[in-house]
């Protein structure tokens, strides 16, 4: 059985239907990419999964829990972390305080220290700047902080929303390397990206979204060679 199963999801903003009966699944260990243009509904799907938006209909099953019925603040302790679009770090808190907020629901102090060391190893820049106010970090560093903060909860699945947005090409490559590392260390990844080329290059499978519908899905490598995908999303 899949780790995360989304079934017939319908989401409305007022009278406007943003998600039109979407179903998809994520298996343990996979990297799944949701790609599509601005406004296709990618971010809405992630927000609905982690409870920030309540869907009108449909179910979201995560390892036997129906997330639709669980309040947003109780989802992280089930093993699901969400790196939101625009990073949404706490700009007035220090880097270390941000990371500690990521582990808010954890009570295993000793293991938390280990996780922190692991994150410092993966993001040495965060260690250098741990006492700095997070709002003073560069965009790329803020993205690293947002990812580190999510990893502090020691999630089994991590949802990432546009991690490459607004970053220099150098940082974009670095961020995607890190996503690959996170996946290799055993964490399942659900990735939302406008940078379809990069996303497909690290994903196992992908779903292509258009105005609230899934129009294509399949193996990431195959999608990369699909003519319509090439034309619409890869600029070839």
């Amino acid at each position: 059985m899949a780790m995360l199963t989304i079934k017939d999801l319908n989401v409305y903003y007022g009278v406007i239907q943003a998600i039109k009966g979407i179903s998809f699944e994520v298996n343990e260990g996979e990297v799944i990419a949701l790609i599509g243009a601005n406004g296709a509904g990618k971010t809405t799907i992630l927000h609905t999964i982690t409870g920030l938006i309540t869907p009108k209909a449909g179910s979201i099953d995560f390892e036997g829990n129906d997330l639709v019925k669980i309040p947003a603040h109780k989802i992280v302790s089930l093993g699901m972390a969400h790196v939101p679009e625009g990073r949404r770090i706490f700009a007035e808190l220090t880097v270390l305080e941000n990371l500690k907020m990521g582990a808010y629901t954890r009570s295993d102090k000793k293991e938390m220290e280990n996780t922190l060391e692991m994150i410092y190893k993966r993001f040495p820049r965060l260690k250098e700047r741990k006492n700095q106010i997070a709002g003073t970090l560069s965009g790329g560093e803020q993205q690293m902080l947002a990812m580190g903060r999510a990893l502090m909860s020691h999630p089994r699945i991590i949802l990432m929303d546009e991690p490459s947005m607004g970053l220099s090409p150098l940082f974009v490559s670095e961020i995607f390397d890190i996503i690959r590392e996170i996946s290799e260390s055993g964490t399942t990844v659900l990735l939302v990206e406008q940078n379809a080329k990069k996303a497909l290059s690290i994903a196992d499978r992908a779903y292509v979204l258009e105005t609230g519908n899934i129009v294509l899905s399949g193996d990431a490598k195959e999608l990369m060679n699909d003519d319509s995908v090439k034309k619409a999303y890869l600029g070839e």
Partner: protein
Amino acid sequence: MGSVLEQLINGLGTGSIYALIALGYTMVYGIAKMINFAHGDIIMVGAYVLYVTVTQFKLPVIAAVAITVTFCAVLGITIEKIAYKPLRKAPSLAVLITAIGMSFLLQSLALLIFNANPIAFKSIIDVQTVKLGNTTVSGVTLVTLIVTMICMITLSLFISKTKAGSAMRAVSEDKAAAQLMGINVNRTISMTFAIGSALAAVAGILFVCQYQSIKPTLGALPGIKAFVAAVLGGIGSVPGAMIGGVLLGVIESISKAYISSELTDAIVFGVLVLVLLVKPSGLLGKNRIEKV
């Protein structure tokens, strides 16, 4: 009329009471993005609870103070739950009007229970006046300074050093991101109202010990002054509220002594207008860019 030093110390005394009240305004604003106009009336409720526990139930001072602070904290949480929480997604004007309505409700309830006649109240603070040269400081002022200092230091440590304090700061910055961290936003808002109201209760106790008279509208003037202090310091900023409150008290005391007691309030509000002209976000206010 005493020395300048004496006026300064008296100003610090009143100012630190304003600061305690201003902290409630500023913390609630920071987290719920609303001005809780019923906050001043918590002072009045605190004063009446103290009166009832001390003079009617004849409880020892410590117990009376503990009951007063607890009562106000619970009242603060209750007001938020029944009046403000249902309006979380409503326009801010609706919340503002509700808060004003809540203020009237509390005053009317006090009027109903205790009627409009002021009740004389003997200070529970039994400390001798201190004399240093030609400067005299009353026991009440001395205790006020010490108690408010302890409250402010404890609060600052709580906000900056504890997990719950960090969570409070996280919620005031970004509620959705805070929820993704597993922070219960509703509980954090309740906690903020509880702390703010408990501080208002302490302010109420110190206030009646100073003025020794209780009436249903007792909270209105210190409430509005503390609100001014919070805006002066930069609403949303905790150190701003402390500085704003103390500054207001000192300006008030100095202008009362050396300029004119009739013009005091005009001077106080004049200072506010001036500060806001130069720095619209207040002394320590943040010019935060709104997120989209």
